[in-house]
């Protein structure tokens, strides 16, 4: 197409200044500019462009968001830590002093704090990413860049907070007398899995929110349901056996459970011993399904999303 001989743009017969433009071709190599090959103009897409630019954009956006989050507040980062910590303190007191059920659970305080922090990341990432594409409307309509950067940057920002929170969690572990063990080194694997799962949900929500603006209310309710149906307040063993499989299908369950085994209770029974193999496989399928579904939906919607906003 581009190799065809091209007709010269028609020019009128009048006008002196114009003639000069043509007879005086501008300095072509000025400023070391080299001629670039003709290429089709890329439309908007989810990824697109070169990888280096993608990574730079993702990183810069995430760091900017992170800095903005703590700007203007006197205590800065402490606020984001205080929220889950207070939540933890209340829950801990309720379940060890009032309902006294936590006393029957070994390492209850440690596990409760860890679970809350991991879950908090999931909530932060998914909730902040949900409206991100809609909030980024001016950018989406006027700039060409890989669209998926928008929700992903939100997930990364939440992840930065979460990593800092985890430093506190580890400190709490040590102060509570949890023995550091070699499997602590596997914490990055847990975090990476949680990251991928949260990112899948975040990407899915950010696409769906473009079409359904009441999704935030629904998601608010759903996250509450998830909070009580994921083994956060209680260990999985406390769930009647007939319900365990359905709770395990939620990918957060195996993630939290593995965190518990790897970080705090190496002697705990393995997840497959507790619930059988099928629910664990089911949970992996749910996780992969969400990832593939979210990505394919986002990729399909990306070229049109600017027009839908």
């Amino acid at each position, binding site marked *: 197409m581009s190799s065809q001989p091209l007709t010269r743009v028609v020019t009128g017969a*009048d*006008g002196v200044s114009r003639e000069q433009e043509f007879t005086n071709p501008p300095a072509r190599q000025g400023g070391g500019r080299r001629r670039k090959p003709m290429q089709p*103009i890329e439309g908007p897409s989810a990824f697109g462009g070169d990888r280096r630019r993608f990574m730079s954009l993702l990183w810069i956006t995430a760091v900017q968001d992170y800095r903005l989050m703590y700007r203007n507040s006197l205590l800065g980062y402490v606020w984001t830590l205080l929220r889950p910590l207070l939540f933890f303190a209340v829950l801990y007191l309720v379940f060890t002093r009032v309902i006294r059920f936590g006393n029957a659970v070994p390492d209850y305080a440690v596990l409760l704090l860890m679970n809350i922090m991991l879950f908090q990341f999931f909530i932060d990432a998914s909730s902040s990413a949900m409206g991100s594409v809609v909030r980024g409307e001016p950018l989406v309509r*006027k*700039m*060409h860049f890989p669209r998926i950067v928008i929700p992903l940057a939100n997930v990364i920002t939440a992840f930065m907070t979460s990593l800092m929170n985890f430093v506190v969690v580890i400190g709490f572990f040590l102060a509570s007398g949890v023995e550091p063990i070699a499997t602590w080194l596997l914490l990055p694997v847990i975090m990476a899995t949680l990251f991928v799962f949260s990112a899948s949900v975040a990407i899915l929500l950010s696409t769906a929110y473009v079409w*359904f603006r009441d*999704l935030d209310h629904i998601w608010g309710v759903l996250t509450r349901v998830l909070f009580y149906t994921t083994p956060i307040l209680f260990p999985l063993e406390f769930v009647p056996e007939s319900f365990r499989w359905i709770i395990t299908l939620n990918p957060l369950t195996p993630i939290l459970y593995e965190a518990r085994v790897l970080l705090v209770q190496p002697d705990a029974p393995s997840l497959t011993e507790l619930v059988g193999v099928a629910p664990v496989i089911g949970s992996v399928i749910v996780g992969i399904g969400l990832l593939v579904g979210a990505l394919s939906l986002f990729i399909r919607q990306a070229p049109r999303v600017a027009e839908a906003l």
Partner: protein
Amino acid sequence: MIHNALEVENLSKTFRIPTNRVATLRERFVERKGMEYRNLKVLDQVSFELREGEFLGVTGRNGSGKSTLLKILAGTYRADSGTAYAAGRIAPIIELGVGFNAELPAFDNVVMNAVMMGLTPTEARRRYPKIIEFAELVDFQHLKLRNYSSGMRARLGFAVMTHVEADILLFDEVLAVGDARFKEKCSETFERLKSEGRAGILVTHSIGEVVRHCATAILLEDGKVHTRGASAEVVAEYQRLQSQPASAPV
């Protein structure tokens, strides 16, 4: 040999305008509403070429498809059919200061925008002093953009986009925002860009700008190329068209 910077052939775009917009899950699944659309053809077989070192004027009445054309070239909308080829990078200067974050100072915004346009973060940081100086905002660079006037913001936006080494620049009514001094600076920049062999598209209603900066121009009317040729002729045609009542209600 003068090469083409941009080749656009038979570009068409139809918008589906929702006449009955369903924006919530409740409407969709509880009230069982469906979306209804009507089609609006905004671009119809638009073709033109742009050569290196030249600016092309694009003019036409409101709703003639100018902005849509620019957005397709900028890569934010996708054309339904037709092809568009470009030699090198395109910088859309569609709305000055788009993507600026009001809570951050100039530096962060400049780096962000420059990276979005394809510079590496290092290149962007290195170019910052030149950009802030060009924008004449050195004394205000530590302010958050929230505290900038719209003119200052526009200057910064213009400065970034004309310093990212783009090969083709798309300007949408940028001269309309600034004062006389800013306009003069823009004009000088246009001439500098041309002398460096870069190409540009200037969407404007201002006849003076087209004649001053563009050798050739196109006039869009109802999404079609109404006239294409020397800018003086196109501008004359535009003036004739404007004195007529609109052809059909959109």
